[in-house]
């Protein structure tokens, strides 16, 4: 899965320098990366949507929108990306923790500083970068867990419903459930696994998902599904504060 990084700095030389270090880092890991460059906080906010970036490097002293104000608005939309402040001033060292920053780099920084920050970001991202291998049609593919909405059994096949596609696979649901091994997925029915990140509402006998799909809840799983969904919703509401 491609890692997506945004670099926001009003100086083009700084953007260029940092993006070269980032590309070099991921090259040594042999991992594909997409780096987007922005010259202002406004520009970044305009192009941003939740889930778009895994890591954002943000300068603090910029015209119009400071890095801190940009960070505040980004966090209001998405609590899941890793944020790294990259700036000349140490003044906001204490305040930076308010935005759940992963690191604070003082310019001029070098490859080691950026590498250490990225090492931590990759580790912090953890589950968000995880994929599961599915042998589908002709060759095995890696499906990001984040993109799986729900999985259903149809005969001898499981259908993996993702945000982009519906992927058939010849695997048993128990095996897939063990491979996913994620607290975001619950077995709400003997033939269904649902990703709670896409559950909009729990109705009496089914989950209503964000795209309008409905996933049934087995009679024996109803109480557990309700408890699990309430607990999960509560934890996620807190993590967005």
């Amino acid at each position: 899965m491609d890692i997506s990084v945004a670099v926001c700095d009003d100086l083009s030389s700084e953007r260029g320098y940092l993006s070269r270090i980032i590309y070099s880092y991921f090259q040594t890991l042999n991992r594909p990366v997409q780096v987007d460059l922005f010259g202002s906080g406004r520009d970044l906010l305009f192009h941003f949507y939740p889930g778009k970036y895994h890591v954002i490097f943000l300068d603090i002293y910029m015209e119009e929108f400071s890095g801190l104000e940009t960070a505040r608005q980004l966090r209001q939309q998405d609590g899941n990306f890793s944020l790294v402040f990259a700036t000349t001033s140490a003044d906001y060292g204490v305040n930076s923790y308010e935005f759940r920053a992963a690191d604070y780099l003082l310019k001029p920084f070098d490859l080691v500083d950026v590498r250490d920050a990225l090492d931590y970001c990759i580790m912090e991202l953890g589950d968000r970068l995880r994929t599961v291998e599915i042998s589908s049609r002709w060759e095995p593919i890696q499906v990001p867990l984040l993109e799986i909405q729900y999985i259903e059994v149809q005969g001898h096949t499981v259908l993996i419903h993702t945000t982009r596609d519906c992927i058939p696979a010849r695997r048993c649901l128990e095996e897939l459930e063990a491979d996913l091994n994620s607290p975001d997925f619950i077995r709400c029915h003997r033939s269904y696994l649902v990703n709670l990140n896409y559950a909009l509402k729990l109705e009496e006998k089914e989950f209503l998902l964000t795209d309008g799909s409905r996933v049934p809840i087995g009679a024996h799983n109803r109480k557990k599904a309700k408890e699990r969904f309430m607990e999960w919703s509560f934890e996620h509401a807190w993590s967005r504060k």
Partner: protein
Amino acid sequence: MIIFGIYAPDGEECLSLCRLLELWASNVCVKMELALWHSSEEAQADPRAGECSLIFFGEGEIKGRQLDIARELCRCCPQGKAMFLSSDPLFAIECYCLHPAGVLEIPMRYRQLARTMERCFPFWREGLSWIEVPVCRSSVRIPLCELEYAEASGRHCILHCSDGCIQVGCSLGEIERMLPQRPFLRCQRSYIVNLCSVDRLEAGGLVMRDDCVISVGRGRYKEIQDCCAEFFRLTRN
């Protein structure tokens, strides 16, 4: 029950932090134990050190060695995260090497602590207190910190929580018996309020965060006024 460690050789700083944490735990209804240490030997010898979810490191007189001590202690507490007390922005930046849960500015204020602890929710969620209430033919568990106020409705009552309302199949009196005395307050016959959700007290009554106004019984107005004044004095600084 969650355990927080406090490593603060400075007695006053330690006391101040303990008071604030106890106030916070009472307001958020979290069962918390504090382990206080004045030296790293004391911390390492304490069997509770391995169970701490957060360890607060005071500035004290060992500023230069704070990070080394923190590194040493965090090794004894693999599931614990460090939280530093400092106003030095350069030190705060240096702390990133340990990826702490946060840095609290000195002098400490309740509001700052409360905001910081909100962000550290995963480290204290195990200590949350809940109530279990009957709903329809089933039951629902609600964390006390989410309960803003409870309103009597015939033989039942309505619980107003931060993300919605829920009608429960028991009386307000039964709910009152399940709740701790603070931060919950029976302001009149038909209402129990969580002081943390009160915005202000006016002549008309208690103005809640959702702009609902709850009248206060005439006989209890002075008592409620004193409670609110004390609560706001402690928490709005």
